[in-house]
């Protein structure tokens, strides 16, 4: 035995390193990067289109200046600015809803549409586009005229609201969150089947119109419609921010969250409603936009290096806006030759980026 006075077991080994909170510089940098990309993409998305408007002119027009080319101001103000704002809002809303669903279901494959939102919206739109109005080609045109863009948005919103209400109704009686997920998926399948039946019996021109809607698009949303889209996305997204603390607890699973004082049933309900609101309103105006809602949360986690929702939510909102804007720019690439389907572009641009990030940073998969 040594003659050294006995010390507590812990201090026998050399004193432990001081315990400090991990610094958040990486998270802050990542968020700034997403914000920067979103800003640049916002301006570029206005610059591209059938007519190229140089970014410097775009910036001066946005800040109230004039440009030498007559007509550019009108193009920016009436067409491209609403388009860019729509893309930003839709991307942000879908990404935030995606984070919510992935955390709620603790499932990396979850996204804004797992509870049947897009299937419901698709069914609503299919019902209006495929069956409304008299039969015959003139009837289709009349139907489109009668309902218009806003009519389609209302149909999509109603469809997703009905499916969501059914899911909520069933999930009130269900203890396990995994069951809620399965119920949502099943409702989605049923509604999808009904849509398929509608398509099978519809005229080719109407099917064409429905398909175009299902490709997704940020174009054609007017300022009036933005006055509906923007407040809903901003308000619902802001409300999600207030659940960040409890979403962090939910990462450990519902039983641990419960033991930390979280009202799990309440947070579950709030999360489902807010994410449905976000995904529903986006789908109503822009169609079912796949990919962004599932991919951006992974991109954000890998970039920030944390799952803390107080960083993850705003970063995902910025990243979602950035990815939507980049996809919109990609869709405009053919220039005068027309536009590419948005859903094709989001996947074509997004998938390689996500694969690269996730594979390089293998922890991201464990990370969710």
């Amino acid at each position, binding site marked *: 035995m040594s003659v050294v006075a006995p010390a507590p077991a*812990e201090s026998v080994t050399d004193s432990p*390193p001081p*315990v400090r909170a991990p610094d958040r510089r990486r998270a802050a940098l990542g968020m700034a990067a997403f914000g920067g990309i979103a800003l640049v993409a916002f301006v570029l998305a206005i610059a591209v289109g059938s007519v190229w408007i140089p970014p410097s002119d775009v910036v001066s027009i946005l800040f109230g200046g004039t440009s030498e080319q007559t007509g550019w101001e009108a193009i920016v103000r009436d067409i491209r600015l609403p388009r860019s704002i729509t893309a930003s809002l839709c991307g942000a809303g879908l990404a935030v809803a995606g984070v919510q669903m992935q955390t709620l279901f603790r499932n990396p494959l979850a996204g804004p549409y797992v509870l049947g939102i897009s299937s419901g919206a698709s069914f609503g739109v299919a019902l209006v586009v495929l069956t409304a109005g008299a039969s015959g080609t003139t009837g289709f045109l009349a139907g489109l005229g009668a309902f218009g863009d806003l009519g389609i948005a209302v149909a999509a919103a109603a469809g997703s609201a009905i499916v969501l209400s059914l899911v909520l109704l069933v999930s009130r009686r269900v203890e396990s969150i995994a069951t809620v997920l399965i119920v949502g998926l099943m409702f989605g399948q049923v509604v999808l089947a009904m849509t398929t039946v509608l398509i099978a019996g519809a005229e080719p021109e109407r099917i064409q119109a429905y398909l175009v809607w299902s490709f997704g698009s940020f174009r054609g949303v007017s300022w009036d419609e933005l006055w509906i889209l923007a407040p809903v996305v901003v308000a619902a997204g802001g409300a999600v921010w207030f659940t960040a603390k409890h979403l962090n607890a939910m990462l450990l699973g519902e039983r641990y969250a419960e033991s*930390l004082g979280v009202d799990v049933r309440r947070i579950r309900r709030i999360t489902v409603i807010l994410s449905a609101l976000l995904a529903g309103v986006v789908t109503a105006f822009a169609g079912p936009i796949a990919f962004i809602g599932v991919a951006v949360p992974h991109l954000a986690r890998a970039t920030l290096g944390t799952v803390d929702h*107080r960083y993850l939510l705003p970063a995902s909102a910025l990243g979602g806006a950035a990815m939507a804007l980049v996809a919109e720019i990609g869709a405009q690439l053919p220039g005068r030759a027309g536009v590419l389907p948005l859903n094709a572009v989001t996947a074509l641009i997004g998938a390689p980026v996500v694969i690269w990030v996730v594979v390089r940073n293998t922890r*991201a*998969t464990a990370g969710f």
Partner: protein
Amino acid sequence: MGASTPITTRPTAGPVMSTSQLTSGYRARRRPPRVVVPAVDLTVSAGELVTLLGPNGAGKSTLLRTVSGVQPAMSGSVALVGDPLDRLGRMERARRLATVLTERIAVGQLAGYDLVALGRQPHTGWNGVLHQRDHDIVADAIVAVGASHLADRDIGELSDGERQRLMIARAVAQEPAVLILDEPTAFLDVTSRIELGALLQRLAHERGLGVVCSTHDLDLALATADTVWLLDAEADLRIGAPEDLALSGAIGQVFGTAELEFDPERGTFSRRPEVAGFATVTGEGLATRLCVRALTRIGYHADELPEGAAPDVTVVVRDRPVGVEFLVSTQGQNERRCRDLRAVCEHLRAQPMPRTAEEVR
């Protein structure tokens, strides 16, 4: 700052949790209610380490879920630091009682420190911002469980034992009066299990936490618990110091089977040998004791020979400069020199077993 001194002071004596005629079980719709553990009176004092022991399916988890308020009691009540559990709000309950569960958590991109910091949730505001005091408590909890080196590691890349340690730190950071652990040793290897026992003992004795830990790990319970709640397959609950329950034969009754025999003095179970003989081992030191063990393992009664019994086998253990040597002689055979116990066992196994189990008893 003295890192090992707790920041908060807790009552060092007196009950922190008690139950009165608490019945736990399940009420399901359209089914008769199922009582799992009927009417029990339990007390946990500050600084006490209680181990809830029982075979699988005895109702340990149900009882723990009921005392922690996750599952409503069928009848009776639970008091937590003086107040009825069902009158406490969620947050207040979380400030008094922390839980560590069996389930593995599947998160990555979360630093050990951040995991422990989640324990501050019942104490922080709506957005969970940590103030300096919260950071001090988190750091203190991490040091208390000996996990300083894990603070900035991603929990996705830790071992089960390391993650369990951080989950306990998270519970400590919650500053509870009562800490409840449901089968915390389930996924752990031997070393981690023993370390966990020592840790729980420290948390109870040095920090004054009332710790209740369910396990079917008998060794751990008997070696560390101040009090054992022993639940048998019929949901009968017996309470006492581990040694009391060993002395009364309760542990032997609950866990013993036709093949297993409880040794109250050692606190371990041993297999009842099927066929056996008598052996004497002479010699000194560890090698001799291990030789006794080896012979016991292959079915010889080698410890103390009963009065008047003649050994069937004798082993002489000799310490030679080249190493230990075992001289084995069996009845009517020449002495055999063995260099290790494996050779001893192999040699003896080749011999016919001299007696039946009944004779040895």
